[in-house]
Each structure stands twice: as C-alpha cells, then as structure tokens.
C-alpha cells in the first residue's frame, strides 16, 4: 500500500518534520548502528533552505517547557547552492524521496530557490514554509494573510511541475481561510502545523529568554492544537494533508490519520529519542508486534 501526497508517492506515511532532522546524515549514522537504513522513511523533509545563507538568530535558541519545546533557530542554513552541493548530493545516494523545505524573505526568493532545486533530480517535492514565527521578514508573514499566502503559492506553482506542499501556521484566527487560499493558488497538499507562537521569561530578570521575544512551541504540548487544525482543514479542502505537532506514539499517528491526515511528520520526538521514527514505522508496518 503506497501513500499519495499530491502526486508524490511514498511507501509509508512517515516523514521528518523540517528542521528536526538536518538532511538526515547524522541520524542515518545513528540508525545504521542498529541496521536501520534512512529509507525506512516514506520521505526525508529537509531543513528550510533559502536563496542566500542565513545566519539564524542570536542568543538562546531553545528552551524546554512542560511536555514541549520553544525554539528560535531563525532558519539558519547555508543557502541553496551549498545545500545542493553537500546535503542533496548525499541524499541522492540514499534512495529516499526528498521533500525540500523552502524559506524566503520575499515571494521572488521562494520561487528562485524552487527554480534552482528543480534542476536537481534528487528533489521529489517542495514544502513552502510560510509559517515560521522565528524570522522577521517573510516566514509567518505570508502564512497569516490569505492574499500573501496565495501570491507566494502561485509564484512557486509557476516555477515547478513537482508536487507543491504549503506548510501552515496555527497562529491565525481561522486556519481554513489560509488553507483554501493556498489550495486555490495551486498547492497540491498542505502540511500542518508549524510551531505555535509562545513566550518564555527568565525567572531572575522577568525578561524574555529569547532575543526576539517570541519563539515557536512544539512537542506533545501542541498535539491537541495540531489535531484540531488537521480536522478543520480536512473538512475545508480536498487535498492531502501531512499532519504534525507532538507526534510521539503510535496512538498519536492513528489520531492524526483519523482526523484526516494522509501522512505524518515527527519533529521534537526525534530529540527525545532519535529512534522514534523507526519505532513508529515498525509499529505501523506490523501493528500486532
């Protein structure tokens, strides 16, 4: 039984949540110790890549919360050329579909990254990150406004024939409005959710822990928010959904699939246990075991 995500065929419904798996090299080395190949995954979703190198944010970048994690990485990445030369060149040898997660400050940046990656046979699909709370220009700004979401989706649609996935933020009044705008502008599938905007204060000073104040919450703490978003968007649009947000157990996977997701992504749970994805895949493949 294969899974179809807007034209992308996967052997199982499991992928990595962007930014929590790098491009797979480090986790693949760890998995290899137990004889698990990277291509047990349905697909690898890469860390966000932008046209030029981005240095990411200054100051503290992560803080633990009750059953959750706040991050403010700021989409640090070496830029699309270095990504192609190093990450993609390696991924091309791994026999696994690659979903490239794309970031930009402006519409034209997203489309330019996609035009560059479209020359790379190792890329199977794109996931547009219009939902990151951790950068000032671009990022979530596109994901909270249906007009901006539609424009960036349309610009990327025009740049590629490959499956186009748009990743949504929960930090909106009505996520179905943005979902419809993205689908109407040509998205083949949607990913949801990106992190939930949150704040942490230093108990000593009362000042924000993170330099930008806001950070993005992930992990089991956001699962109910994510599940609700998936159920609502499933009722509103007809495209396949990749569900994510706190997925840690086999029951979490079943919940997201029951709420209307076609596939799932695991992020924070990989930090807790780097073998979470292989464990969930084994459980899904052999439910009785």
């Amino acid at each position, binding site marked *: 039984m294969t899974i179809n995500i807007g034209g992308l065929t996967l052997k199982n419904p499991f992928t990595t949540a962007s*930014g*929590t*798996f*790098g491009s797979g*090299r*480090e*986790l693949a*080395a*760890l998995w290899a*110790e137990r004889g698990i190949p990277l291509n047990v995954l349905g697909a690898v979703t890469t*860390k966000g890549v932008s046209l030029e*190198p*981005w*240095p*990411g944010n200054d100051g*503290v*970048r*992560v*803080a*633990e919360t*009750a*059953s*959750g*994690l706040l*991050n403010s*990485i700021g989409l*640090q*990445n*070496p830029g699309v050329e270095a990504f192609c030369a*190093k990450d993609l060149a390696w991924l091309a040898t791994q026999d696994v579909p690659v979903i490239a997660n794309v970031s930009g400050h402006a519409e034209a940046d997203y489309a330019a990254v996609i035009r560059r990656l479209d020359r790379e046979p190792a890329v199977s699909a794109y996931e547009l990150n219009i939902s990151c709370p951790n950068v000032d220009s671009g990022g979530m700004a596109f994901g909270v406004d249906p007009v901006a979401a539609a424009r960036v989706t349309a610009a990327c649609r025009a740049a590629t024939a490959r499956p186009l996935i748009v990743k949504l933020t929960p930090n909106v009044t009505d996520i179905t409005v943005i979902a419809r705008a993205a689908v109407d502008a040509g998205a083949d599938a949607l990913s949801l959710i990106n992190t939930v905007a949150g704040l942490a204060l230093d108990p000593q000073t009362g000042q924000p822990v993170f330099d930008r104040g806001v950070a993005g919450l992930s*992990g*089991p703490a956001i699962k109910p928010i994510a599940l609700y978003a998936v159920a609502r968007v499933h009722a509103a649009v007809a495209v396949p959904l990749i569900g994510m947000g706190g997925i840690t157990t086999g029951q979490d996977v079943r919940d997201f699939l029951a709420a209307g997701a076609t596939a799932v992504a695991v992020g*924070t*749970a*990989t*930090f*807790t*246990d*780097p*073998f979470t994805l292989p464990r969930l895949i084994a459980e899904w493949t052999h439910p009785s075991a």
Partner: protein
Amino acid sequence: MTAPLCHPERSEGSLRAKSLAATTLQNRALTTDLFQLTLDAPAIAATLAPGQFVHLRLPNPAHVLRRPFSVSAANPEAGTLDIVYQVVGAGTAELSGVTRGASLDVLGPLGRGWRPPVGTRHALLVGGGVGAAPLLPLAQSLPAADVVLGAQTAARLVGHADFAGRVGADHVYITTDDGSAGQPGFATDVTRDLLAAHPYDYVATCGPEPMQRLVAALARAADVPCQVSLERRMACGVGVCLSCVVTTTTGRARACAEGPVFDAAEVAW
C-alpha cells in the same frame, strides 16, 4: 553578516554515537548539590575520548529534551562511564533521584573532545566548579600537567583528589571565592601567575564562560595554544537542530558537533 558554517565532516564524534539503555551502577551525593553517576555503558565507554559528552534522557516523559553531560571518566575495561553533575534545575534534581539498578537511556559519545597539540609535554588545565569534570580524563592522557581548580566554596570543588592522584598533589592549585579551601580568590589569578612562571605548551579550560574567556586571553598573551569547552542549550545533541551554535571567526559552529571543545582562537567571544 557572517556566513553560517556547518561542517558535518568534522563531527566525527556524533557519527560514531550509539544510543543504549545503561544500568545505573551508582548515583551518590558528593556534597549537597554535587552528584556522581556511574553507568554501565560498554559500547560508549569503548570509544569515548576525553572531553566528549553524553546526552541523557530523563525518566519523566514530560521532559522532551535530553540533558548533556561531560564524562569525567570512561573505563573501557569495566565498560563504565562516570558523570559528575550539579543539581541546578528540574532535570538534574530528577536525575539525583535515580537509584542504583535503574536503566537510563544514554546517547554518546557526542561532540569533539580535547585535541592537545601533538607532542604536548606540559599542560595547564583550568577548571571552574563542575567544569573540572571533563578535564579529568584529559589530565590522565597527558604526560604532565598543572591543574587549577576554582570554585565559589569548598563544597563546589570537583575532582581535587582525583587530579592530585594523576598529576601529583603539588601540581594541583585550589582557589575558592570565599577562601573556604585553598587560596582565596579566583582561578584566573593563579592561572596568570603559573603562565608567567612556566613554559606550558597547551592550556585547556572548562567552567563558567567568563572564566574561560579570561583564561583564553591569558593564554593568548602568553602565546600558548588554548582550548575551551563551551556549554550551550542543546536539543538533538547530534548536529541536526542548530540550537547550540557558537559564533566563531568563520561563522556559526555547533557545540554538539564541532565542539564542545573549540580552539580559543576561533571563538568570537
């Protein structure tokens, strides 16, 4: 804006890491808030190099992040790892309650450890508080060293007896802020004097970052190569999430992969 740097080819540590269930052989209080944990983890003890760390998963699943700890002793024959830790928050408090026989999920060895220049003969090691822990296996691996240990107070001194056993008691210099042990004052004062008196060929330091920075500046002034071991908040511990970055002269490097041990000269303090 400096270009971000990722050097997967330099992160040999993480590429040899293993994840395993280790049995707790011992978890004893050294003082009121310092503990020593001994784990049965042969596969990690076999390859861990001085200065590398392990990432421990806490028993309570409400903690989504592991906790990073340097290894103060790895014994490949016995298959054991020692960690000395200070209780500073919820995670280390929980760790202090782990009992003998309990299983702990350990990931390691991680990161890059100390890299003394080839042919190092006489090193100076400067540890602040619990930061002395990763210097213990380094002291073991060097032909000769002087060791400066600083702490706020006598009860926060780590490893002085072990260091004395390795380099000789008269090569261990102790300072405490409150004068409750050794010389009153800061480790950096003694470091300055020692650097003026002896021709060291390597300085290694770990502890509070302001102390490490000052030690690095003193070593630089004395023209001695220096390495520092930097702590950053980490999530994955294996180089994928870019949480623990250190700003270096050539861009951002990951403390868990390119570090935690860095050449002092490459750190942009």
